[in-house]
């Protein structure tokens, strides 16, 4: 895989990452803010939930990123286990804290949405419980990766954990199908949606915006880790 090996070179990666970071970040922020504004002001209330439906425009992207980030970790971890790309180990560690934040935002916005609609801040149904589990798994991964790096480990154990944790993703996705849950079923499929056209469009802006924003954040974290590695390597050489 010659193309991928090119990106394994940190210098090449940084050459692309440096200009790309502000582009992703600001484009993402702009789209997300416009989507949020539209969702708050430009769309009608729901026939049943009235104004609380507006939380949809920020809850869904948070869930999407909370889960999508872990698939990023799983893929990077797999690449590290099989091809030993040094950058893929870094990518997984860079993604994790950001993914954890969005998983937490998903749970919090979901709870705030649940109180006036379902009548409860929290229930142990299949969807909510498995998503909470994913958040804990993020925390465990972050701790594991940190401990492994501090001890001079090669990153294989966290990578295995990164792959194994992905089993939660289909569980979260299908929880509302397999079991009776309080959480409603899927509203958006690849070809169709149960959200009316007059109400769905801000979601495309927040979904796209948050994703680009997330990309910018991950690049920032990877750049920080690469710079720290450079300093550490230089210190080690100077100490010899």
């Amino acid at each position, binding site marked *: 895989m010659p193309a991928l090996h090119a990106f394994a070179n940190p210098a090449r990666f940084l050459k692309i990452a440096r200009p790309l970071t502000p582009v992703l970040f600001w484009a993402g922020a702009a789209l997300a803010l416009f989507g949020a504004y539209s969702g708050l002001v430009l769309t*009608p*209330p*729901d*026939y*049943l*939930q009235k104004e609380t*439906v507006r939380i*949809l425009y920020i809850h869904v992207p948070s869930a999407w990123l909370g889960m999508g980030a872990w698939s990023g970790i799983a893929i990077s971890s*797999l690449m590290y*286990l*099989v*091809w*030993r790309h040094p950058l893929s180990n870094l990518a997984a560690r860079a993604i994790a804290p950001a993914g954890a934040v969005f998983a937490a935002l998903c749970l919090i916005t979901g709870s705030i949405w649940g109180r*006036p*609609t*379902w*009548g*409860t801040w929290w*229930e*142990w*149904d*299949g969807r909510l419980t498995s998503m909470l589990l994913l958040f804990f798994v993020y925390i465990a991964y972050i701790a594991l990766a940190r401990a492994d790096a501090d001890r001079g480990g090669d990153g294989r154990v966290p990578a*295995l954990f990164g*792959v*194994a944790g992905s*089993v939660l993703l289909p*569980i979260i996705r299908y*929880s509302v199908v*397999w*079991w*009776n*849950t*309080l959480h*409603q*079923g*899927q*509203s958006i499929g690849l070809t169709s949606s*149960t*959200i*009316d056209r*007059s*109400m*769905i469009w801000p979601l495309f802006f927040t979904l796209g915006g948050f994703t680009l924003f997330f990309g910018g954040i991950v690049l920032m974290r990877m750049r920080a880790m690469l710079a720290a590695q450079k300093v550490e390597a230089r210190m080690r050489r100077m100490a010899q």
Partner: protein
Amino acid sequence: MAMKAKHQRLVLAALALVAVLGAAGLALSALKDQAAFFYAPGDLVGKPVPADKHVRLGGMVQKGSIQREADGVSIRFVVEDGVSTVPVTFRGVTPDLFKEDSGVVAEGRFAPDGSFIADNLLAKHDERYMPPQLSGNQHITQSLE
């Protein structure tokens, strides 16, 4: 030499993946019934839950079934899922979204006569979202607000 090692790692990674998925699959099938958040009326046909066991019953509030009792606080209604029905009594504050032809999850226990005595109600809504003018004549009927 490099090819062989990479091949080994690929096989190991694949084996780890299979093991994890297998374990998860086993755990899931063991969890199947316990993971349900509520019983639907149809689940109970021929398989009644013993009275006095604290459970949840979920389904749709049958149209026209909400009745306010004489004491002004208790209500009766019927939960249905297209397969079966269960009459429910409840005393307390209902959630904002509790209405006829809408979803509900009742927590409580079954009385010996097969009716359900609820001590808590949660509203459940489906995945459809639309503006009020598109909802037709749904929800113009009795609401408890």
